[in-house]
């Protein structure tokens, strides 16, 4: 079904939508469907990217169960839990932003995206606080790592404990990197949205940034129990 370009151009947003049609597509529908499929396929590459680390995690957790329990106690339960809530809420504001774009509410779109940004930055702030604490406690793998037993000397399972922390920093580190990229993307659509580039006919970038954001949230949904909730007691 060919897009009816003449009616599209009757509104300012429609005109913008018409301009958004790239030359190699037949109509906006094909363009939108392509972009959406493309984003989903891209997210699958991200799934496999994190999947490699989950595989490493699985192998070592099965190999060193006791050490993983002990090391998990060094995680800050409340930081992790609050961060989980923060990210889930940012997903809510993100999808409400998509709703605002779908229904042509420019002001609300901007506000929801700003909120999403704020929650995302809060997440990273808490993460930075955690990383700092880990550094101070000598949990960071490498030459400064220390894992002491009850007698105050290096415990026999120090090497295995370092594996846990290597995985912790690798997994949360790459997750945080994706959060930073996500903040950049949200800023981009925030700017575009503020300039009125989106409309009910054309708001694909908002949807697709949303997909990315939710995916990064899903990764954290799994990281949280795997890293923070192994142990039965948390301080």
């Amino acid at each position: 079904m060919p897009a009816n370009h003449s009616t599209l151009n009757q509104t300012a947003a429609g005109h913008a939508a018409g301009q958004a049609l790239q030359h190699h597509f037949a109509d906006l529908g094909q363009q939108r469907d392509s972009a959406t499929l493309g984003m989903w396929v891209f997210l699958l590459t991200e799934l496999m990217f994190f999947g490699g680390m989950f595989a490493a995690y699985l192998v070592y957790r099965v190999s060193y169960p006791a050490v993983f329990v002990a090391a998990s106690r060094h995680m800050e339960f409340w930081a992790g839990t609050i961060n989980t809530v923060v990210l889930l809420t940012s997903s809510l504001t993100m999808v409400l932003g998509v709703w605002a774009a779908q229904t042509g509410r420019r002001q609300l779109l901007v506000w929801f995206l700003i909120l999403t940004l704020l929650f995302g930055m809060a997440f990273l702030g808490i993460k930075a606080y955690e990383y700092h604490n880990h550094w101070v406690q000598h949990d960071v793998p490498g030459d400064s790592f220390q894992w002491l037993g009850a007698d105050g000397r290096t415990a026999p399972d120090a090497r295995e404990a370092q594996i846990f922390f290597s995985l912790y920093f690798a997994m949360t580190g790459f997750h945080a990197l994706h959060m930073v990229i996500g903040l950049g993307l949200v800023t981009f659509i925030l700017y575009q949205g503020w300039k009125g580039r989106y409309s009910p006919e054309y708001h694909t970038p908002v949807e697709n940034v949303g997909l990315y954001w939710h995916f990064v949230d899903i990764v954290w949904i799994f990281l949280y129990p795997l890293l923070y909730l192994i142990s039965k007691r948390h301080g």
Partner: protein
Amino acid sequence: MATSTPVIEKPNYLNADYSVKSWLLTTDHKRIALLYLVAITMFFFVGGFFAMLIRLELLTPAGDLVQADTYNRLFSMHGVVMIFLFLIPSIPAAIGNFVLPMMLGARDLAFPRINLLSWYLLMIGGVMILYSIVTGGFDTGWTFYTPFSTEYSNSNVIVAALGIFVVGFSSILTGLNFIVTTHRMRAPGLTWDRLPLFVWANYATSIIQILGTPVLAITLALVAMERLFNIGIFNPQLGGDPLLFQHLFWFYSHPAVYIMILPSMGVVSEVITCFSRKRVFGYKFVAMASIAIAVLGFLVWAHHMFVAGISAYAALIFSLLSYAVAVPSAIKVFNWTATMYKGSIHLRTPMLYALGFIGLFTMGGMTGLFLASLGIDVHVTDTYFVVAHFHYIMVGGAVMGYMAAIHFWWPKITGRMYSETWGKIAATLIFIGFNLTFFPQFVAGYVGMPRRYHAYAPEFQVLNVLSTAGASILALGYVLPLIYLLWSLRYGAPAGNNPWQATGLEWTTASPPPTYNFDETPVVTSEAYDYPNMPQMPDEEKIGAR
């Protein structure tokens, strides 16, 4: 005889704009394909240069040309450059980028700017890898096994690994583009069961690129981090497991070999049908076999680890699965053969390469079954048997398919015909040179010559001399097309729209095509490979206007 043929040039994608900026900032899939073609040709000769040094060293049993340390760098760099900078991009990026959208009746790929980004990522990653080479190289093998690569090697592992990481994203984005284009941009009437098998092959390749490459990316990133920060995920001294690296590495790198072979198989399907003037035998089987290879290819990776220390139980499972993956490849070979049966065979240059592919790929594939058998693998693993096996597939298979593609679509890409005589000479030289190079290696490996050693026992020398002699012929064979193809750009006969009278939408437009490919969106009403209803292929002398 060879005069510059005056051709009144219609507007096409080549003469649309001559500025450098119009090439470096192009979003035209055809121009991007040419950018890739130039890049991978350069990389091919870099990798070939290392091969030449390897073969020169192996002329004599003593390690007298280079030191052991240097030799380690030579085969490592040969592998990385050939695999990541040549083979993986080759057909999809240099040929598929050009031809796939046209086969679908589309104006471009779904994401033209991402296509350009893919090329830049290849170049950036390639520069990083070349930088790591010229500043001393790396000696870990293209396989980067830990803990040598993470702990003990004193070479440029990090830069090389990160360069491959970047190139991997080039590959991922190409695959993504192909998948979305194939799903969303087919011309009216072009249903899945009417698609050229080249499209099916590239789709299957794209599945692997999407789902496998990211695992390589994270693995190499972890290696780099381990090396930089001395963390121990793969280091036994720090509590890690080197086998975990191998599992993660081969999870990608085995399917990677199918990235390298599937597009060639797609080319063979196109060429065999055209030069037999017949429909393909068993279209659905060949199409499904491509998908089956992509899927099954992910289930066999630990056959690279049979002697590394995996459990015997796992070895059993992977051995069985490795036998299974041979089946769809065999189906394709049988179907191609049946396609040729009672066909009108034209032994032009592309067909010579396609036939060479079938024979050599079959040999390589069958020796793969030898390797899948646990007992035999213990005997021949890490010997030249393995080296010969994968070169039969990669060079006898994939590169032959690539040469077939170049010679088949060259008229479309450039609008010129090359010298058929020289094409046949080069193909013959390549076939002879290839077999002389690599068949002795099967024997050498079977009788005990190990791989990745710069010196060897004197009893293997004859085989090595034969191999190096073959390599010289092979090298000549590869240089020849460079000459006559470039020559054809100026002096070749104009090709016309469809010099081979081939089916496929790309042959319905001008050669070279206009920037927008088609004046109107084509509508497809016939099945694929509708050769019974095509005119005969012109005789060699009559192709093009002389």
